[in-house]
């Protein structure tokens, strides 16, 4: 029974989600939304929230890289943009519902423009990665250079290196007088990750998603079958941009703060580490990856290890060497083999869904 789920861990493309999978989602939702909050203090909740906020960014990355085959080194461009758009518009408008939406929609629009030039300009593979990295670094530089008092949007100073402090908390849309508190942000970020996870899983089972995986596998063959791969690539790029924007917006909500580091090289590299460690061609993997790396980083910090980046690098190398596909797929394959051995099945046989 469980092996349905394990198969889902390994390669959740093409097939429609099974009942077991839906039960799994409900169970996880129950644990994260009902049981876990009761056992956590506010500080722990705050720590855990950021894992879920960043998990959205990781999902954006795995969708783009793991499933569509486009290694974007700069999903942070849309992450940072989302954060800044939310911060600036919320501080100007005094409400937060529209800024929240803008924090998703503007990065999508930006991704549409950038994606159009990259995809239709036939930049492939390594040039694509380099271009995306350059874009996020350009944004990083540009935002860093806004420390003067002349860099003002409405009433808000962009603040250069220092970023923008005092970003307002999210208000309840139908009750603007009530702002979301730490535990509310926790619930919201968990719900957003669940929605994004389910949404991407369904998208990947749809025709669009299956063609996207075809783009990853063999773009030329796809064109020879009559599909225009560029449209699918652009579509994936825009969806991923929106997801990264959402993550950035939530990051600003979570920390009440945005800074140029959101666009930085460090963060851009971190996203790739999360996804590689967890497993890029899965949707659970990146979420697990974020959790592991974030906790490792925090733990190393409390242990007084100065070279956190160095340790992360070693973790990355170890992960690549030990679990080629990432932690979650490796675990899934292992469990799949175990259950099949017990059932006495031929491991090469795959049941028709």
């Amino acid at each position, binding site marked *: 029974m469980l092996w349905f789920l394990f198969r889902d861990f390994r390669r959740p493309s093409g097939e429609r989600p099974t009942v077991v999978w839906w039960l799994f989602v409900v169970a996880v939702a129950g644990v994260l939304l009902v049981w876990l909050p009761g056992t956590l203090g506010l500080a722990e909740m705050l720590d855990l929230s950021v894992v879920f906020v960043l998990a959205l960014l990781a999902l954006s990355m795995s969708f783009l890289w793991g499933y569509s085959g486009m290694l974007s080194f700069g999903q942070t461009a849309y992450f940072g943009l989302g954060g800044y758009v939310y911060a600036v518009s919320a501080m100007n408008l005094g409400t937060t519902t529209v800024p929240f939406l803008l924090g998703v929609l503007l990065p999508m629009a930006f991704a549409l423009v950038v994606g159009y030039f990259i995809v239709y300009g036939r930049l492939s593979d390594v040039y694509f990665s380099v271009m995306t990295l350059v874009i996020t670094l350009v944004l990083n530089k540009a935002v860093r250079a806004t420390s003067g008092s002349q860099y003002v949007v409405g009433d808000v100073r962009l603040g250069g290196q220092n970023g923008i402090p005092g970003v307002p908390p999210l208000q309840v849309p139908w009750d603007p007088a009530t702002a979301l508190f730490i535990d509310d942000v926790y619930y919201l970020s968990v719900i957003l990750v669940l929605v994004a996870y389910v949404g991407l899983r369904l998208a990947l089972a749809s025709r669009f998603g*299956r063609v996207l995986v075809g783009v990853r*596998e063999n773009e030329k*063959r796809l064109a*020879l*079958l009559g599909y225009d791969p560029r449209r699918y690539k652009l579509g994936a790029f825009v969806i991923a941009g929106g997801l990264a924007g959402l993550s950035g917006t939530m990051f600003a909500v979570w920390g009440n703060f945005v800074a140029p580091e959101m666009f930085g090289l460090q963060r851009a590299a971190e996203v790739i580490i999360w996804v590689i460690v967890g497993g890029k061609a899965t949707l659970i993997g990146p979420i697990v990856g974020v959790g592991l790396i974030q906790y490792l980083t925090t733990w190393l910090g409390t242990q007084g290890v100065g070279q956190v980046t160095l340790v992360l690098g070693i973790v990355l190398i170890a992960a690549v060497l030990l679990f080629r596909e990432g932690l979650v797929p490796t675990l899934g394959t292992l469990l799949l083999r175990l259950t099949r051995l017990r059932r006495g099945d031929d491991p090469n046989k795959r049941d028709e869904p």
Partner: protein
Amino acid sequence: MTDVLLNTRQLVKRFGGLHATDTVDFDLRRGELRCLIGPNGAGKSTFFKLLTGQIQPTSGKITFDGQDITDTPTYQIARLGIGIKNQTPDVFDGLSGHENLWLAANFSHAAVAARDQVDQVIAQLKLAPFIHRQVGEMAHGQRQWIEIGMVMARQPSLILLDEPSAGMSQEERVRTADLLLELNATCTIVVVEHDMQFIKRIADIVTVFHRGKILREAHVDEIMRDPEVRDVYLGRQEVA
């Protein structure tokens, strides 16, 4: 409706100084099963790539079904009804055989019809024993079959096959030949092949390529008797 399905006029493709395809005038009637032969490097695969828009010609014109497709992008040519099996299996290695066929069928069919189409191709090509395996893990011959299946699932009006029997056993070759004859009932086919046994089994008119040009075009028996053809091509291998 014109009888000519595909023609090229003065088609040229130069790679640097090399004329891979040189002033080719090629005419193909609707319903033909044409064979292309020629030594390695004669320009057969380049010709196929030009026809499907995988590379752009240096000069010349390609017309398919009365429509100029000379500078049309690959995916649009595919939509007009040209299907191709490239020389080396060009498949989705990370997906199962079933998913490969599904992607092919789904382009031109609605969801339910696509599934039926896939099932039909699986039955016709006897792919059932390995259809759910990952294509990248299949034997070369099996990948060839998957690719042929993908081309069939699209139900094109013109099928281009670049060495379909390469890497197949003798038994599979016979099956492939019979399959082509069967397919020919509903669509036009052009096959690049080296195996003369295979060609004799299926061919009517054979076109001989040599150094990017069309050297001869005649009935298969005549071609095999032609001294110049024997000299450039057939002479070097056993003519059965």
